[in-house]
């Protein structure tokens, strides 16, 4: 029971609650203190005060007071509820759930506590608990439709389709009269029920139910899509075809509909007999709608030979005549097929030489289109020769220069020119060129964005931020960078971090990658409000989609990219703790005496910086919280350079924040498995390492990392300082057989690796050779110079790409090779890639 208060204080307490709810924190605190003056140990008041303090950002104080409140009044549901809210605010959901449950035990009828508990259970996907809470909420107020829907959702998410449907039906049966035609909540609820029936696997019943409700339903597109899908699944092809045609009449630019129609018509792209029918089908759709792209583009996917050539000719002329700038991006996927690539190249080169024919298939058009056609053709060719599958940068440059000569002010042409420089590896010229393009249209954010990106690729972090600042809200706390964080501008954070990584600024690199991970956390948290919001809005299908997306949120490449880089950096920190001292020089490379000197120097510099920083902070602290010019209050970033991130004592454990979601949600990402192996091996977890190795092997047994990691794992097991616990050893013995345990000496592993080198020396695969040399180095560091020599020779291989050559350079750095060796490698590479910035002298 809460401690009783005299009536005056009791009404004051009610005010405290009111002030809190209306966010009038100062007034709330004042009233709370008034009560506490007379009743210093009043638990509920302390709890409320704690809640207000927490909302003001005084988390630690709030927790201390919240605990004290509980101590004073263990039997108060208010104290427990507040305690739960405090945990919830620091995202410790498990503790919050516990506290709510205590509160409910004391006050089982409290709908507020029950609702808070339920929402949290949904957030952490405790569906059993969620069902229980939803049931209680429904029992308390069965007259509300959303309470029924809420319980149905709980059952649905838990996979209990039958019960979910049953709950929805029970509610429907209570309806005395049919809801009005415009009742969107009802319309959505019955459609939701329909998707549950379908998900339960009973398509027949789903279709029948759909037939009953579809005419009155307000989401026309959705019901037609469902109908078509069900019909196709039930093999009722004629009707399915009809429905897909109806869908295509509504939206003729959606491949899912075309694919459905093809299936309904028993057409199969891999079957030659189907091809003429398919062609006729798409011609039919193309002729219906002059502006339709899909029906014209899709046949290029399945046509071959002469038929392809004719269709491609028509398609290209049409687009190029119109001057559609995305013509090339729109067809480049076809280049995976070498024959199609050659045909397209031939065709467009043909256009270039027939320009007097002015691009019209019939050969008649007036001069203006003729000039547009000619420009489009050149523009296409410039992109064609830039693209990786058809690259010839000299030719690309020639075409783009011709265009720029004709129209020097074209943003698009200059952008392509910048891209050509990028592929030459000249990041400086690329950045300069795109900056020129940007200056041609200062109001266009797109080109501004590309410019910042190219500047980051050229390691110009500050310049890039300045470019970005032309379009950011610079009055935000933290200026342009603060705005980019607020607006969750992931691409920028990633590129900025990667640029810092290239410059060995590990602190700032980690800072950016951490910011990306933080944004994913915010996104995850974003769903919370919708557990209740969506019930009120009644758009349940959309909500379910959102929940399912959230369950694999971090398989997004934005997260993966941040994770791969962050994990690599944390491993570097683990292998070489000196890096945390903030040196951009690799200290481990130096002689001990020099190393000591260098360290001292760094220390001195850092002290200076720290002092300046401290002064600045003291000044800032006077303001307590940072306030932007727009009046927004935000917590100040106490580690703007990522130095605290660098200081971590457990880099590998911190890396797990990135690695765990990577392995869990993107298991088919082979580089993730490779890094997972490396981290786990360093953590002394050979079984987990093996799991990654096996996963990688299953994805691609020929992947270079599979070879290297298998050898390194065996090597690790051969050289254990302490024996492994018996079950681990047993398990490894059973499942790790390649290389066999008989390869128990380093020389045996070296022999295996030498065989691997031989195989790939003849295949000429650069990546495999690089990996093999790295393996040789890791087995025995004394082989360093041999590895360096061999790596240098890979530059002679015909197949080597610019990226591979650059990877080789990184490998040398990893081996801590001498400056001389690096220079020699760079020099040789520079002879091959004359303008590539990465091989320029440092």
């Amino acid at each position, binding site marked *: 029971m809460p401690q009783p208060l005299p009536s005056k204080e009791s009404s004051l*307490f009610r005010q405290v*609650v009111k002030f809190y*709810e209306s966010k009038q924190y100062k007034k709330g605190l004042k009233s709370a203190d008034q009560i506490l003056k007379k009743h210093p140990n009043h638990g*509920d008041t302390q709890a*409320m005060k704690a809640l207000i303090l927490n909302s003001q950002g005084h988390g630690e104080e709030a927790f201390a007071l919240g605990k004290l409140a509980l101590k004073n009044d263990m039997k108060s*549901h*208010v104290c427990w*509820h*507040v305690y739960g*809210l405090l945990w919830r605010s620091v995202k410790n959901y498990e503790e919050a759930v516990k506290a709510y449950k205590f509160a409910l035990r004391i006050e089982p009828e*409290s709908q*507020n*506590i029950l609702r808070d508990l339920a929402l949290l259970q949904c957030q952490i996907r405790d569906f059993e608990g969620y069902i229980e809470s939803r049931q209680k909420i429904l029992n308390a107020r069965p007259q509300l439709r959303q309470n029924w829907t809420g319980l149905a959702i709980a059952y649905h998410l838990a996979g209990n389709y039958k019960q979910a449907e049953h709950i929805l039906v029970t509610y429907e049966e209570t309806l005395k009269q049919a809801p009005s035609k*415009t009742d*969107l909540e009802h319309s959505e609820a019955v459609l939701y029920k329909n998707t549950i029936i379908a998900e339960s696997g009973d398509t027949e019943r789903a279709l029948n139910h759909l037939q009953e409700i*579809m*005419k009155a339903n307000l*989401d*026309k*597109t959705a019901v037609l899509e469902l109908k078509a899908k069900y019909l196709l699944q039930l093999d009722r092809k004629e009707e399915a075809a*009809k429905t897909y*045609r109806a869908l295509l*009449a*509504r939206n003729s*630019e*959606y491949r899912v509909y075309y694919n459905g129609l093809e299936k309904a018509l028993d057409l199969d792209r891999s079957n030659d007999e189907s091809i003429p029918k398919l062609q006729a089908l798409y011609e039919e759709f193309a002729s219906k709608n*002059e*502006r339709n*792209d*899909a029906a014209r583009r899709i046949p290029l996917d399945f046509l071959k030979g002469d038929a392809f050539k004719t269709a491609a000719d028509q398609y290209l002329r049409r687009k190029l005549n119109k*001057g*559609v*700038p*995305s013509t090339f*991006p*729109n067809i480049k*996927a076809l280049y995976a097929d070498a024959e199609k690539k050659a045909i397209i190249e031939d065709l467009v080169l043909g256009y270039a030489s027939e320009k007097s024919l002015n691009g019209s298939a019939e050969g008649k058009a007036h001069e203006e289109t003729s000039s547009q056609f000619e420009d489009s053709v050149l523009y296409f060719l410039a992109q064609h020769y830039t693209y990786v599958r058809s690259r010839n940068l000299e030719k690309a440059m020639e075409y783009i220069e011709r265009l720029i000569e004709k129209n020097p002010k074209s943003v*698009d042409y200059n952008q392509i020119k910048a891209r050509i420089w990028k592929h030459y590896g000249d990041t400086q010229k690329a950045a300069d060129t795109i900056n020129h393009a940007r200056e041609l249209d200062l109001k*266009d*954010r*797109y080109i501004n964005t590309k410019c910042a990106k190219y500047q980051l690729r050229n390691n110009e972090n500050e310049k890039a931020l300045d470019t970005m600042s032309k379009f950011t*809200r610079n009055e935000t706390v933290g200026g342009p960078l603060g705005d980019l964080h*607020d*607006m*969750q*501008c992931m*691409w920028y954070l990633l590129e900025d971090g990667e640029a810092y990584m290239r410059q060995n600024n590990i602190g700032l690199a980690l800072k950016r990658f951490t910011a990306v991970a933080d944004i994913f956390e*915010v996104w995850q948290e974003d769903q919370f*409000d*919708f557990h209740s919001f969506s019930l009120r809005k009644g*758009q349940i299908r*959309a909500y379910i*989609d959102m929940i399912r*997306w*959230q369950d694999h949120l971090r398989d*997004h*490449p*934005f997260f*993966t990219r941040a994770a791969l880089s962050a994990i690599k950096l944390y491993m570097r920190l683990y292998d070489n703790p000196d890096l945390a001292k903030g040196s951009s020089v690799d200290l481990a490379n130096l002689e001990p005496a020099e190393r000591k000197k260098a360290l001292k120097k760094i220390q001195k510099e850092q002290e200076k910086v720290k002092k300046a920083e401290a002064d600045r902070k003291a000044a800032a602290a006077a303001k307590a919280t940072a306030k932007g010019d727009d009046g927004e209050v935000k917590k100040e970033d106490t580690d703007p350079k990522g130095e605290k991130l660098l200081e971590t004592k457990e880099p590998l454990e911190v890396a797990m924040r990135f690695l765990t979601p990577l392995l869990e949600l993107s298991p*088919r990402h082979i580089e993730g498995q490779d890094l997972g192996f490396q981290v786990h091996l360093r953590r002394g977890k050979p079984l987990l390492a093996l799991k990654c190795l096996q996963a990688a092997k299953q994805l691609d047994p020929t992947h270079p990392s599979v070879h290297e990691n298998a050898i390194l794992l065996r090597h690790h097991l051969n050289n254990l300082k302490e024996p492994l616990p018996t079950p681990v050893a047993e398990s490894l013995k059973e499942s790790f057989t390649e290389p066999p345990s008989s390869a128990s000496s380093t020389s045996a592993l070296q022999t295996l690796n030498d065989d691997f080198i031989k195989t790939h020396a003849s295949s000429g695969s650069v990546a495999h050779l690089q990996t093999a040399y790295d393996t040789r180095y890791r087995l025995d560091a004394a082989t360093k110079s041999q590895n360096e020599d061999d790596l240098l020779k890979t530059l002679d291989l015909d197949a080597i790409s610019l990226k591979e050559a650059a990877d080789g350079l990184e490998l040398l750095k990893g081996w801590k090779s001498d400056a001389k060796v690096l220079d020699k490698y760079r020099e040789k590479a520079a002879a091959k890639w004359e303008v590539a910035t990465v091989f320029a002298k440092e």
Partner: protein
Amino acid sequence: MDIRVLRPEDIPHVQLANITNLPENYFCKYYLYHAMSWPQLSYVAVDVSRPPKTPYDPPKIVGYVLAKMEEEPTDGVAHGHITSLSVMRTHRRLGLAEKLMRQSQRAMLQTFSAHYVSLHVRVSNTAALHLYRDTLGFTVDKIEASYYADNEDAYSMRMELSNLKDELRELENAAEDGVWGAAGGGVVGSEGKDEGDAVGSEGQKAADEGGAGADLRKVKVGRGLGVGELVERSEVAGAA
């Protein structure tokens, strides 16, 4: 380029397209707020021909329309509103903006019984103005002075949906005959016809329809309020 309704998992790339192209940006929750409130109204253009790079490639969004229903219309008339629309510079002149808008407008009408749709556009954005006025049939309702944060004026534009309604009813097309179960179909039709003629302007569309504007005041909503204000306050125990 596929045109289809926006799904929650598209949001990261819609956000990317938005911040790449336009100065008015929003955080994820504001997109979610649209997608959870009016999931039928927002559409995306997806480049489906890109060769995949990883097993987890998200859809490559090259254009989008983010749309809503006005929650408390001052005139008391149900109407839709375009929060943001943009098409990547690389994908212009494909008519994507128009295709996106038409899908969204139909859903406004059919799902939410909207009478008209409104939007704001910078007076200097002639390309967007051309799209809205000449291609789609919007009219300038009024000029809102200093509407944008940088003090630029906005055209407040609107388009009645009654014409579209008639079109859909009249053009009740053989394509949907029978698919609604009973004969006769519903209030649906094909817009095949309007696609056929509304667009004769291709030739002059050199100005393109990309980068069409959104309205800045909404940014304030996105930043400052988001959905938080729309949900129940996190009340404390039945303390009172």
